[in-house]
């Protein structure tokens, strides 16, 4: 195979093995091509400087935790979807009645929880009091929920402000009840930050609000 200087760039771009061998033969007697081939190959060598495959032992466990959390959320959502899948089968009147009942249950149970909380004095020996480390963890979980919920709430706002179906209107009402329960629990938690029961109730409320908002967004996509 006969190769000249003018073939060089084409071979650099997409030359066959044979063409490369012929270019090397040509380069042995052509200083310009010799220099160009050397510089071309040196770029591939230099690229190795950008390779660092060193192990980071804590990295996989971190990803694994995130995946496990994601899987749990996915399963919860699937469970709720199954639970609500019978909704389209029943009449609109019953849907409204069911949603109303749910709001009532939440209001009553939320009120009962708050009522009880107001009369429980913190006991220094109580195991339900959170140690400072655990408290920090709970607080950071709450912050994470707040952030996630704020994002979801912003997305769901148009649907909730102008609910197109009775179901969405009911979700809207449920969210108002949850918001007021959360506000009360937060006020309580502010007075008594290390009461574990209170914090767990608050987390449960956040979870419920997050689930509800996710359902609103799913309802929009259907």
């Amino acid at each position: 195979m006969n190769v000249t200087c003018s073939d060089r760039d084409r071979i650099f771009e997409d030359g066959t093995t044979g063409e490369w061998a012929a270019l090397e033969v040509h380069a042995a007697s052509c200083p310009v091509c010799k220099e160009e081939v050397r510089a071309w190959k040196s770029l591939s060598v230099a690229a190795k400087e950008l390779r660092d495959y060193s192990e980071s032992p804590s990295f996989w466990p971190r990803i694994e935790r995130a995946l496990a959390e994601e899987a749990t959320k996915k399963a919860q959502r699937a469970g709720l979807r199954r639970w609500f899948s019978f909704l389209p089968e029943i009449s609109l009147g019953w849907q409204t009645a069911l949603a109303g009942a749910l709001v009532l249950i939440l209001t009553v149970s939320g009120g009962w929880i708050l009522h009880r909380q107001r009369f429980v004095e913190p006991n220094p020996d109580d195991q339900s009091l959170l140690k400072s480390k655990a408290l920090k963890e709970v607080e950071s979980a709450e912050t994470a929920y707040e952030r996630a919920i704020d994002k979801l709430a912003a997305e769901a706002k148009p649907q909730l402000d102008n609910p197109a179906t009775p179901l969405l209107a009911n979700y809207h009402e449920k969210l108002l009840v949850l918001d007021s329960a959360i506000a009360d629990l937060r006020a309580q938690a502010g007075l008594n930050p290390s009461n574990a029961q209170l914090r767990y109730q608050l987390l449960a409320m956040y979870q419920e609000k997050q689930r509800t908002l996710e359902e609103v967004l799913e309802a929009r996509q259907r």
Partner: protein
Amino acid sequence: MGTMGLALPWKARISSVPRERGTRVEPSEHFVGGPNLAAEDAQSEDAALAAACRSGDLRAYERLYEIHGARMKNLARNLLGNPVDAEDAVQETFLKVHRSIAGFRGQSSFVTWTYRILINTCYDARRSRLRKKEVANEDSEESPGFEPRAPGAHPTLRMALERALAKLTQHQRDVFLLYEVEGFRHAEIAGMLEMTETASKNTLFQAKKSLRQMLEPPRGSAAEAR
């Protein structure tokens, strides 16, 4: 990380490490490929890994990490300029794979699809970093702020190369990193960047031409005089 001792069909091997080219002489494409049998093996392993991930088996994700984690992180670090952002991007990629695996129809290989998600995630991260920078009214030119890494690496050459790479177009940088650093083939890169193989080859050529100009301008007459 343990290897879990799984007896899964894809335990065998999926083009895990980059093509080892040493002081590789171009064109590697013509040496790679091998018999069809090997390609079929890789394909079925890829499909098995995708199926295991789709079933929600976290061990399949661990396997994906074992095979590609280091390469994914290295690519992300070269695109983002620091290991912290790179780890975030890789983790986000795993979560995105987990979220959207049900919609993966196998139009490309599972691994190709995963890298495509990683590259998009890195560019999303760059864009959001750029927006933050703009808000902070800092210098608006987005070039990754590279941090020191492997102690054995040649710092001057590496830094010069990183600076030169930052001046390439996005596609040129991607193709150079995927081909020359991570050792992917043009066929794989074409799938990741949604371009043709010919375009991938041409983009690499343009990238190397530009890098050559920036790093080592041709000596022209001096070379000819020798």
